[in-house]
């Protein structure tokens, strides 16, 4: 059942909010329970995976444009942060913010031409942009350090891992909040209308170019922020590790598919499942984790193609099943 009207929370939704707030409080308290470094890092990476998935959710889940270029935003966010810290000697936070804003603007600018493409054409074009960005970053030695990369200043905080944990948690919370607020606004309905039938969306008065570009800019913003935080965590940034298409384009899409796209919490649930599972598998079966992940993916696709959230709640969401449908015939 779909919600009767915006702002009226159903009982099920109230339970979800309660769990979300309890989860946030738990996440804030967690580092103070003196967890091992392993668990602190594991959850840091769960949050990062969730930000990347939440970022993809704007353009892929809500708007229905399957971008395969998000790795470019991750890498650029990291590099802008790194360059500002090493070359301009900015502090971390303004550098990270600049990285996110840079990626938002970059996404908006490439979105204007690319979002005229649909389906596979858009996916391949965005992948092409990602490859091109990686080549430019690799080749621009004077600014980026070329193939060797950059070394960021070491985080002076004695609890630096805890600090990174909180940066990731803050960025994730912000991304969830923005998704939650926009999903039930006119912007969210414009995105969904575009995803469901772009031709009909134009006919009801939706400025599709504007809303698609906005979705892509938000995708760029949050993935760029995650890239910046990751750069500060890792202190070394190099093209090969940052423009890793499997880690930063494919996995976030799989995470959204697991959790359910076009939902506020689906990507977060997917990130927990995916990240914990892949961490566990890589310890139990080193080298075989991808086999198991692939198997798990096949099972998800067969048994709950609409994503875990719909499978568990019975509520209609936009999931893999819809993404796999043939491109919509938009003409009468």
């Amino acid at each position: 059942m779909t919600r009767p009207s915006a702002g009226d929370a159903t009982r099920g939704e109230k339970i979800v909010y309660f769990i979300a707030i309890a989860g946030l409080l738990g996440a804030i308290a967690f580092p103070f329970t003196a967890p091992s470094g392993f668990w602190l890092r594991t959850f840091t990476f769960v949050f990062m995976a969730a930000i990347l998935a939440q970022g993809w959710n704007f353009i892929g889940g809500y708007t229905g444009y399957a971008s395969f270029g998000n790795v470019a935003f991750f890498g650029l966010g990291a590099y802008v942060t790194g360059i500002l810290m090493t070359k301009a000697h900015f502090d971390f936070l303004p550098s990270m913010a600049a990285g996110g804003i840079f990626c938002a603007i970059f996404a908006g600018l490439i979105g204007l031409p690319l979002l005229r493409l649909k389906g596979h054409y858009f996916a391949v074009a965005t992948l092409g942009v990602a490859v091109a960005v990686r080549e430019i970053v690799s080749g621009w030695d004077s600014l980026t350090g070329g193939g060797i990369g950059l070394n960021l200043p070491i985080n002076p905080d004695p609890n630096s891992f805890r600090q990174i944990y909180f940066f990731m948690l803050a960025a994730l919370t912000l991304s969830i909040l923005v998704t939650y607020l926009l999903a039930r606004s006119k912007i969210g309905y414009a995105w969904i209308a575009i995803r469901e039938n772009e031709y009909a969306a134009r006919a009801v008065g939706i400025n599709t170019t504007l809303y698609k570009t906005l979705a892509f800019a938000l995708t760029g913003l949050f993935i760029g922020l995650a890239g910046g935080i990751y750069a500060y965590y890792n202190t070394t940034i190099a093209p090969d590790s940052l423009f890793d298409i499997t880690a930063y384009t494919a996995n976030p899409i799989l995470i959204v598919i697991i959790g359910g796209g076009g939902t506020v919490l689906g990507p977060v649930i997917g990130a927990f499942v995916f990240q914990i599972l892949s961490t566990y598998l890589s310890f139990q079966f080193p080298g075989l984790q991808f086999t198991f992940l692939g198997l798990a993916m096949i099972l998800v696709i067969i048994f709950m193609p609409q994503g875990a959230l719909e499978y568990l709640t019975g509520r209609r969401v936009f999931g893999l099943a819809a993404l796999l449908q043939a491109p919509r015939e938009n003409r009468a």
Partner: protein
Amino acid sequence: MSNDTSILETTNLTKHFGGVTALDRVNLTLKEGEILGLIGPNGAGKTTFINVVTGLDKPSSGMIAYRSRAITGAPAYRIARAGLARTFQVTKPFRHLSVLENVAVGAMFGAQGASRSTRAAFEKAEQVLVFLEMKEKTKWSAERLTIADLKRLELAKALAMDPQVLLLDEVMAGLHGSEVLEAMDLLRQIHASGVTLLVVEHVMKAIMGLSHRIVVLEFGQKIAEGTPAEIVENPKVIAAYLGNRYAKPKETV
């Protein structure tokens, strides 16, 4: 009822799709407050006419004026917000949204969408669904609807946009006898509320009963224009629908 002010006017409107001329120098005037029927055999260009007028397809040449202002080549969303709403012959619901949400999207982005909150858009959508007697299906997912209800949903989305001109592309196709009468009654009520209607329809009982004037298209060209009584007597129209053999005796009249 209708006055002589034109609300929508096309001049030599032409649309080519590759080598096919779907619209060929169509001059059509829609007067404020009237119900204009647009008929013609399959492939005559009726749907193309609506697509081009609403900006969803760009015209190859010619002019479109809405309230004496040129809207030729304007983006579809601007034309929609200016007060022209249309329905789709091949229905295009937002499938994963509920019926209420589908209609609310129309209310959010149509002519008065900018000044309407999301909540007000849902209230408007409910009013429209009550008017169209779809109240009990508001929470249904649009993909559960039958064809007849999907046609009605098309009308609901368009009405929620607060249009001044409503372009209806075969909303009655597939309806049976009593449903056609109900639909005609609904359209008369919509018209009485001050909306100018352009009705594309194959159901002759409906088009003859509703229209003040009728324009006939064939192969993209306007071949006739007149009152329903004039149109049924027009030999060109009879030839277009039934072939020249049936039209010939009339030519002597």
